[in-house]
């Protein structure tokens, strides 16, 4: 509806970058995390990166190829560039993984809901169940929680499922968290000579994990079927479904609730997720086929 009587006044607001236009960021570091995962360190051409929260994502553009949603894998407030860990699975991720230091990528964000780690009850155990690259969106939260818990309070349990011993992502981080007092267990889908650890799905680690199900917060991130079984196993152990958080994934082309692709039943995953409670939200959606 027209706000003014004459069209001359009915103009656009003061010029600013559009919702769908990325900011240019420079790649200031890149680190291979396994056979096909690269962690990119990014700094804006101008100014500082906007503040973000654990588990939020950015839309990353490989100019000339396309744009995709990638979770931030560094911790908010940490000094230095922000990090994103990208698995090379499609055209855009392939281009991002090959981006050299000094090159420019586009960044929009941060978007979405976050792991509400600040709401974890004092003294409660924290259980993280992750599958492969699913560790990336929890990496920043884990860093903060391990730091925080070192000074007392509840314990931190990290249960990670990886493909194979030579593809254990963030192996240095896992080692560091273990040294810092976290309970870290890694299982692999397929073993290899010299592998002494368990072989099997990540949920098989749960029975041997001595957390207190009546006083804990749990976070699961990985393939949907992994999260479904992990959440159910946690509930079977006595964890309150409302104390479990999962991170959902759907096709995203805008990240801001405009493109419609990431619908999952009642949710626009980019806007209402990616992090959602299991109890009352994801539990139902995980049961509904092809949504």
């Amino acid at each position, binding site marked *: 509806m*027209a706000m003014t009587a004459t*069209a001359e006044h009915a103009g656009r607001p003061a010029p600013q970058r559009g919702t769908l236009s990325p900011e240019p960021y420079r790649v200031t570091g890149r680190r291979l995390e396994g056979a096909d995962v690269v962690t990119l360190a990014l700094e804006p051409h101008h100014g500082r990166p906007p503040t973000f929260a654990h588990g939020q994502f950015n839309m990353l553009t490989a*100019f000339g190829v396309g744009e995709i949603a990638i979770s931030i894998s560094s911790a908010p407030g940490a000094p230095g560039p922000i990090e994103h860990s990208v698995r090379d699975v499609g055209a855009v991720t392939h281009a991002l993984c090959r981006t050299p230091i000094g090159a420019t990528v586009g960044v929009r964000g941060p978007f979405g809901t976050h792991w509400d780690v600040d709401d974890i009850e004092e003294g409660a155990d924290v259980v993280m169940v992750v599958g492969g690259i699913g560790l990336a969106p929890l990496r920043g939260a884990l860093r903060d929680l391990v730091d925080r818990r070192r000074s007392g309070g509840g314990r931190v349990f990290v249960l990670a499922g990886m493909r194979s011993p030579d593809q254990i992502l963030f192996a240095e981080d896992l080692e560091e968290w273990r040294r810092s007092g976290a309970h870290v267990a890694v299982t692999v889908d397929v073993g290899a000579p010299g592998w002494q650890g368990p072989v099997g799905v990540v949920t098989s680690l749960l029975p041997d994990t001595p957390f207190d199900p009546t006083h804990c917060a749990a976070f699961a991130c990985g393939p949907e079927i992994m999260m479904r079984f992990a959440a159910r196993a946690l509930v079977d152990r006595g964890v309150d479904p409302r104390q479990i958080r999962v991170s959902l994934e*759907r096709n995203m082309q805008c990240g801001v*609730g405009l493109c419609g692709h990431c619908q999952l039943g*009642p949710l626009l995953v980019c806007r209402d997720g990616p992090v959602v409670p299991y109890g009352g939200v994801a539990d139902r959606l995980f049961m509904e086929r092809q949504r």
Partner: protein
Amino acid sequence: MDVGDIAVLEREDLDMLIAALRSMGFRTIGPVVRDGAIVHGAVSGAHDLPAGWHDHQEPGCYRLEQDESPELFGWAVGPASWKSEFFAPEETVWRASITAQQVTLSEPDDAAGPVAIIGARPCEVSALAVLDRVLMGGAHPDDRYAARRDGAFVVAVECGAPASTCFCTSMGTGPSARGAFDLALTELVEGGHRFHVQVGSEAGAAVMARVPHRAITESDRSARQDVLEDAETRMGRSLDTADLPGLLARNLEHPRWEEVAKRCLSCGNCTLVCPTCFCSDVSDVSDVSGTVERQRRWASCFDLDHSYLHGGPVRLTTASRYRQWLTHKLSTWWDQFDESGCVGCGRCLTWCPVGIDLTEEAAAIRAADGAVATGERRAS
């Protein structure tokens, strides 16, 4: 005149209304006959409007006929909805020139200028409000859509000619004007060709100040009542909206989804003609000079790629895609945006090549609430 005031515009002064809008800098777009359908085009005067044209609509059927009647708005809705004026079917959202060290980004200007849309039906005014909430009501508005909407002028025309596919009365969106219009006309033919005019905004009042009009009489009022009451009785379809969101939400494994999938071609026509469907794809197009454009175009949830994730699409079957579309319109739109995504315009019935009727599908599910397809089990 002030907001809320009512007057009468004689048919011969309709040109003055269009001229006033044009003199104020608006592009005037209205209904025109093209390619055998009533679509939108530039309108420089009342002579461009579809006099005597009537549409005949059934599921999977649309025909235009012309008679001697002087009526300009004697039809329901055509295949084109007004969303395309504000939400471009295809557009460049940014352009970047790229060198080894520099990326320079620019956003193409919207050179077309503000638009006045003439002849939006009440259901279409409601549809624009639905789109507004989706595309500019959240934390990250679509600035291109918002700029076009904020500058636009809406001349609604109340509906006196619903089609057999229409069900606006069920959705509460018509046939009388409601919501955000600048002016709302009602075409009155009996007893002298004229228009009942309601002023819906300051901008509408400013336009009427430039257009000859007269005071309303009792016979004008009752003539409008007759038009609207007649329209309600001629409404071709109805949709029972009682607990409709809940009904669909609890029937996701209903056998009807498989049944409709046997007829549905998954062509996406319904999403193209729907005035509220808002999905879009983006793609990056580059050339050898180092220029990259990000282009956005309308998308459809009937496309297999719409739900693509690494590993493949989530909604593999036609049944799951039809279910997504219907449950989004009538059920999960409420969860996402606190209102219905359907305004009852009936376009998806008419323009479905196999004539699938949304009201019939919803009714079939209601008739067997709780039925579960044989052999289907919820994933466990």
